[in-house]
């Protein structure tokens, strides 16, 4: 699969629904249009395994499971910014419009899911929506009806300030994935005077960090280099930070304040590197975890992990890893919380108190309320 597609899919649920949960940072000067591309790295931290405390079970109150939808509805859920509503794409009847529907996690029993908006990618403050029309990417401001097109038909990523865009263009989409060039661009929200930031091979744009004007991208800096490098570029200072280099890097996920990053390294010749990693986005404190499974950030510094299980007879368990110390604790117990997740389809609420997931038993959306931190 195309790396850019993978990256787009990786961020899709967030882009579609949960991106609106981001907190808009203070306004920044418009810097993108005057940026001078650079490749100078100021940090070249390369993760080396450090000792990680082994997971230790911790007694907690039994978390609650609550059914949210019926009738085999739905998949790829997201959250409203206030963590009150679970959002998902649906068309609940032949006469109903396709769109984003919402179920209130407090009043779910009283009313069916309600229409919440058209399908599209929303800006962090939900003031703009992105979609395709007539072979073009269009950004629309629903409050005024104003709309404009982006050069080329590409998915664009809204910056957390709601004033900038980033995207990548593949001049050549033929040939092996790891050799395909990808040009990264930034522009103001109107896409005027886009500036090419850099070219990478076998990669592309990962996304904006949640705060400031920092772009994360992945790829081989040249065809002479086998490893892909994960880089953060601060557009306000024009400084790049190299986070990690390896051939197969995936699953990049940034904590809610942008301080921490989690990712997978797989199939590296140095087997001690393979696994799940946490690292600060300034390049420091890389740590490999003693777990193998799915993860999402609960807040600025706590990662929720659902390890692969030894047997399908057992429900999944949710663990929490504290980023700074690496300490972990079990939040749910398979013996008392029958958590069954279909297709890895789960999403943490912005306030970190809930997980919505597709229950593999009945294919409805269920809510897991986590113990307090």
């Amino acid at each position: 699969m195309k790396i850019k597609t993978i990256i787009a899919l990786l961020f899709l649920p967030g882009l579609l629904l949960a991106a609106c949960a981001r907190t808009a940072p203070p306004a920044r000067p418009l810097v993108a249009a005057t940026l001078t591309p650079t490749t100078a790295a100021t940090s070249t931290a390369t993760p080396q395994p450090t000792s990680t405390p082994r997971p230790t079970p911790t007694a907690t109150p039994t978390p609650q499971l609550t059914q949210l939808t019926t009738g085999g509805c739905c998949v790829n859920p997201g959250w409203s910014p206030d963590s009150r509503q679970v959002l998902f794409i649906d068309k609940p009847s032949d006469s109903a419009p396709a769109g984003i529907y919402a179920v209130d996690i407090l009043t779910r029993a009283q009313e069916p899911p309600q229409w919440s908006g058209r399908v599209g990618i929303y800006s962090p403050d939900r003031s703009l929506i992105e979609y395709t029309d007539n072979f073009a990417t269009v950004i629309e401001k629903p409050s005024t009806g104003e709309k404009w097109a982006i050069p080329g038909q590409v998915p664009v990523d809204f910056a957390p300030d709601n004033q900038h865009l980033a995207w990548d263009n593949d001049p050549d989409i033929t040939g092996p994935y790891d050799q395909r060039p990808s040009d990264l661009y930034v522009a103001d929200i109107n896409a005027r005077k886009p500036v090419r930031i850099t070219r990478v091979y076998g990669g592309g744009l990962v996304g904006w960090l949640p705060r400031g004007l920092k772009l994360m991208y992945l790829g081989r800096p040249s065809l002479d280099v086998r490893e892909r490098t994960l880089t953060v570029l601060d557009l306000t200072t024009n400084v790049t930070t190299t986070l990690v280099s390896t051939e197969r890097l995936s699953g990049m996920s940034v904590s809610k304040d942008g301080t921490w990053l989690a990712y997978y390294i797989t199939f590296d010749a140095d087997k001690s590197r393979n696994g799940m990693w946490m690292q600060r986005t300034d390049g420091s404190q890389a740590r490999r975890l003693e777990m193998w499974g799915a993860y999402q950030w609960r807040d600025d510094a706590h990662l929720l992990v659902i390890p692969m299980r030894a047997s399908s007879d057992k429900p999944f368990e949710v663990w929490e890893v504290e980023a700074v110390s690496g300490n972990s604790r079990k939040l749910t117990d398979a013996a008392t919380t029958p958590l069954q997740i279909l297709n890895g389809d789960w999403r943490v609420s912005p306030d970190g108190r809930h997980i919505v997931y597709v229950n593999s038993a009945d294919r409805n959306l269920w809510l897991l309320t986590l113990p307090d931190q």
Partner: protein
Amino acid sequence: MKRGYRLIVLLLLTMLAQPAVAAGPPRPFGLPFADPPGPNSWYLGQLYGNTTGAYNQRDIMYHAGQGLHFGIDLAAPCGTPVVAIGNGVVAKVDAPEHGSLPHNLMLQLDAGYAALYGHLVERSKLTVSQRVTKGQVVGLSGDSFGTCHSAPHLHLEIRSPNYLTAYNPITLIDADWDSLALIGSYQRGFERDLADPRQWQYPDDQPKTQFGGPLLNNYSEAWPPDWYRRR
């Protein structure tokens, strides 16, 4: 009596508040790798069916398969031994008419299906008509671009004995698919027809593929958008 009634009500309420466990039909086949999944061995890549990846390439790579991904992709380093998913006979070695180059292998399985192992790194050492047993090494995984650096994975198809129909492997291979799906799930979305967004959205609810049949997912309004479609 009253106490017993309360207990029954409590029990029923508890049962209602807990998701039921689904039981599916028997699955006759095993996984094509002997080792367990992990960051050094293999993990689930693209599923079978109406995947976003196949949708985006419905006019090109997957056109002959009705716009569906007609197998499953399991990411693995080049050279990982792959094993027979069931007892059977070698039907073809390196059959380019079935795609999945640079090397492939077709088995006729005793259970009444055929299995195609695609993108092998080298020609299988097996010969046509040779019997294989479930779990026996039949080849080495490779890369769809032949580089071992681009997209190293095994592409596995389960077909009808006449090769004209492909079935969803996860409905036929006995494995903990919910657990396997935890890793790399960002690659695993299914394309939505906004006229019927609930159609084909679960890994085990996907249409079979009739090779040469019409596209099943040429949607007028789809999500995610086909960003890469050109005039």
